[in-house]
């Protein structure tokens, strides 16, 4: 019973994430696309937690932690500017 609920929730979540990813496809700006990646990051954390319960793998929560940390690194990497010569 609970398995069906979790599985349905994962499916719906994935559909929601696919909807959000349309923004990564159409843009138009780089920041718009990056927001879409941020949504996929948070949604990915959520999906990993659900899969961890469903498949009974506790380490997937560790993976969720790593994903959350690296999403912040990616956002920082996007927005940094180099020192300029001029």
């Amino acid at each position, binding site marked *: *019973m*609970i398995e069906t*609920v*979790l599985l349905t*929730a994962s499916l*719906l*979540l994935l559909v*929601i*994430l696919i*909807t*959000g990813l*349309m*923004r990564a496809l159409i843009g138009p*700006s780089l*920041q*718009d696309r*990056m*927001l*879409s990646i*941020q*949504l996929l*990051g*948070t*949604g990915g*954390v*959520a999906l990993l*937690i*659900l899969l*961890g*319960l469903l498949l009974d793998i*506790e380490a997937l*929560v*560790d993976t*969720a*932690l790593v994903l*959350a*940390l690296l*999403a*912040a690194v990616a*956002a*920082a990497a*996007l*927005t940094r*500017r180099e020192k300029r010569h001029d």
Partner: protein
Amino acid sequence: MIELLGSLFILASLAFFAAGSIGLLRLPGVHARLHALTKADNLGLGLLVAGAGLIGGDLLLALKLLLVWLLVMIASAIAAYLIAGHAMNDREES
């Protein structure tokens, strides 16, 4: 009973994720989208973490989940600020 409550939390969290996703698609301009997204997905993840903690029924697991949620909240708030600042800079430079 606890499982039922957990399921309700998880299903409710989906509504917030959906709101964030639709906001990202429908709202005009980076800054408006930013608002919709960060609020929705943080609340959504919070509810989902609560539900998963109830269903998992393990204190250590619940603590780990709480840590993940806190991290995502702080990280996504800062990321949102950085992306907003970057969008402003682009506008000034062009």
